[in-house]
C-alpha cells in the first residue's frame, strides 16, 4: 500500500515537473527592470509634447539591470520628429536620441548604459521638431507618483514608462533577484534568508511532507482485517495486486 502511494505520487510529480513546471520556469520572457509608470487600466490619455516644452517626471528609479527604456507615442498629425530623452540623477546622466519616424501607437525605445546601482532619477523627454505629438499617459488609478510636468505645471498624468533588460530571461535565471525584490515593502523580518527557506520548503518540502503524511497515515491505520484467503482458489494478477 505504502509503496503504491509513493509510486503514484512520484510518477505524477516527476511527470508534472518535466512536462509542466520545467517548461514554465525555463521559458524565456521579456524582463522589465522596473516599471515606474505602468499603462492605464481604463481608457487612454496622453500628455502633449512639442518642441521647446519638455515633459519631465521625477521619483523614477532606474534599476541596476536597466539597459533600455520604453514609452509609447501618439502621433495623430504624422510621424514623430527626433526625440531626446535625458535621464539624470544620483551621479547618472545620459541622453538618448530616438530617430524620427515613429507611427501612431508605436513604442519609443532606446538603449542606455546600465546604472551601477538602483538610483532615483528625473526623466525629461524633448521633441526636436514638428508636429505636436502625445505621450501615452495614465489618468486613472494606474497613475503613478511620477506625474508629468510641463513648463513647471503638473499634468496629473503619468507617462507610461518602463526600463527593460536587454534580453529575455527565464524565471529560473532570476530566482535570487526575485527573492530580493520580494523583500521590498515588507516587514523587516521578511529577509532574503527567510524567503529562500520558504521557497525551498515550498518547492521541495511540501511534496515530500504531503506524501509522507499520507504514507504515515496508512501506517497508523495498520493492516485492515482482510477475509482469509482461499489458497486453493486461483487469483488473477489484478486481484493479487488489489488485495
Amino acid at each position: 500500500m505504502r509503496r503504491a502511494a509513493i509510486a503514484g505520487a512520484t510518477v505524477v510529480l516527476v511527470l508534472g515537473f518535466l512536462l509542466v513546471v520545467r517548461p514554465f520556469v525555463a521559458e524565456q520572457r521579456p524582463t522589465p527592470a522596473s516599471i515606474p509608470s505602468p499603462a492605464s487600466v481604463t481608457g487612454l490619455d496622453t500628455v502633449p509634447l512639442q518642441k521647446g516644452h519638455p515633459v519631465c517626471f521625477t521619483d523614477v528609479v532606474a534599476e541596476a539591470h536597466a539597459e533600455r527604456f520604453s514609452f509609447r507615442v501618439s502621433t495623430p498629425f504624422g510621424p514623430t520628429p527626433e526625440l531626446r530623452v535625458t535621464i539624470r540623477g544620483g551621479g547618472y546622466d545620459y541622453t538618448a536620441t530616438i530617430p524620427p519616424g515613429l507611427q501612431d501607437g508605436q513604442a519609443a525605445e532606446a538603449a542606455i548604459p546600465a546604472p551601477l546601482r538602483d538610483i532615483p532619477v528625473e526623466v525629461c523627454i524633448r521633441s526636436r521638431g514638428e508636429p505636436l505629438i502625445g505621450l501615452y499617459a495614465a489618468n486613472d488609478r494606474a497613475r503613478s507618483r511620477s506625474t508629468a510636468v510641463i513648463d513647471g505645471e503638473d499634468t496629473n498624468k503619468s507617462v507610461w514608462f518602463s526600463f527593460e533588460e536587454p534580453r529575455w530571461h527565464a524565471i529560473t535565471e532570476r530566482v535570487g533577484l526575485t527573492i530580493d525584490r520580494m523583500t521590498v515593502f515588507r516587514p523587516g523580518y521578511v529577509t532574503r534568508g527567510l524567503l529562500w527557506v520558504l521557497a525551498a520548503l515550498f518547492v521541495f518540502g511540501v511534496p515530500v511532507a504531503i506524501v509522507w503524511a499520507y504514507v504515515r497515515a496508512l501506517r497508523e491505520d495498520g493492516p485492515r482485517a482482510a477475509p482469509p484467503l482461499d489458497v486453493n482458489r486461483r487469483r488473477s494478477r489484478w486481484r493479487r495486486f488489489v488485495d
Partner: protein
Amino acid sequence: MRRLRRIPLPLLAVLGVVLVEGLAWAFAVPALQGADESAHFSYVQKLADAHVMPWRNPDLGYLEPAYPPSVSTEQRVAWTWAGLEPLRGNRAARPLWTHEDERIWARENAKLTPDHRTDGAGSRVVDNPPLYYLTAVVPYEIAGGTFFDRLYALRVYNVALLLVAVALTWLLAGELFGRRRELQTLAAAAVALHPVLLDVATRVTPDVLLLTLASAALYLMTLVVKRGPSWRRVAGLLAVVAAACLTQGRGLGLVAPALFAVGLGWWRARGAPRPGVLGRVPAVVPWAVGALVVLVAFAAYATRFDFGELAGFWSYLWQFYLPPLPGMTDPIGVSWDVENVYLNRFFGTFVQFEVDFPPDLLRAIRVAVFAGLALLAVSAWRHRRALWARRDVVAVLLVAFVLSVLALHAAAFRSLLVNPADPVITGRYLLMLIPLYGIGVAAAVAAFPGRVRALASGGLLGALVLLQLSAFGLVVERFYA
C-alpha cells in the same frame, strides 16, 4: 510538548505544509493586491487607531473601496508612493521593487502625523459585521511599526486561522470516516493544497475567519447528531454560528443547518415517543413544518418579500445549474452559471482576478471534477452500509451544503433584483464549505479498493501539489517576471 505529541503526525505534517504555503503566499504577493484588501485594512485601522467603529458615512453614503477618501491618508500615501494602486489588477504593472523605491515612500510617509492614520471615511465594506476586524486589531497592535508591518501582520494572522480550519477539516473527516487516518489525511491535504483558498486566505479579509468558523460549525453539527445534543455542544454550536454571522453576512447560511443538526440530534436522542398527543404525531410532520419554514424564509429573503418574484427565483436557480426547461425565460442578470462559480472561480482565479489558470488546465480540472463526482457515487454505493450507519452525520453535512448554497443563491438573487449587472455569487464564497470539498475528495478516492486506492491517492496528492505550485508560480510570474 506532551500535547503536541498527541497531535497525529500526519496532521502535523499537513499543518506544516499549510504554514509554509501560507507564509509564502502572504509574503510573495505585494500589499493590498487582494480583493477589497484596502477596504478591509482600513476597517481594522479605524478600529485600532481611531478607536471608532466605522459605520456608513452619513454624508458620503456608500463609497467604493477604490475611492481615495474611503481609506486613511497613510494608506493613500502607500497607494501612490509605494505604487500599490497602479499595480492593483493591472497586468501591465510590476511592483516598485527597489530599496530606493522604499526610501522614496519613507520620505513621504515621514511627513504624516498620527491623525493621518484615522481620517479614512470608510467604504461599503463597513457594512460587514465587525468580529473579524475586532479580532484583527490584536495582531495589528502587536505588530505596530510601519503600514507594511501592520498589513503583513494581518496576513500572518489569517495564516494562523487557516491552520485552524485545516485542523477542523481533519476532525470533521474523523467523525465521518471513523478516524481513518488515511481518509482524514486526504481530506485535510485536499484543503491544504486548494489553490484559491491559499490565495484568498492570505490577504486581509474576513472570509478566512468565516471559513474557520464554518468549519467549526460543521464539526460541532456532526458532534451534536453523533454524540447527542449536550448543552455544551449545542451552546458551542450556537456560539460558533453566531460568531460566523458576526463575521460576514454569509454566515447566516449556517443558521438553518445548525438548527437542523440540533433538531436531529434531539430527535435521535429522545428515543421512543412518549404516550400523549405529541407522541401520536408522525415524526415526519415537524420535519416537514421545519423545511417549509426554511423554504418560505429563503423565498421571502430572496424576493424581498415580493412573492411575485418566486417564479423568477426558481428560474434563476434552475438555469444556474441546468439547461432551461421549455417555456422558461432568460434568468435575471448577466450570464453566470455553475461553471463560472464551481470551476473557474473556485479553482482557477487569483489575486484581483487578473491571474487565472490556462484554459487547458481548467478543462483538465473539469474532467477531474466530473470523474470525482462519479467516483463519489461509486464510493457511496460501495460503502452504503457504513454510510447508513452514519446516516445522521451524512444527512447533516448534506443539509449544511444544500442550505448554505441556497442561502448564497437567495442573497445573490436578492441583489440581482436591484443590480442585475453583478452576479454576486462567486467561487470565493464557497470557501466557507471547504471542509466538505476535502471530505468529498477523500470519499471519492475511497471508491477504490486497497492498493489501487493508495496508488490513486498518491497520484492525486501529487496532482494537487502541482496545482498549488502552478497557481503560486503564475502569481509570482504576474508580479515579478
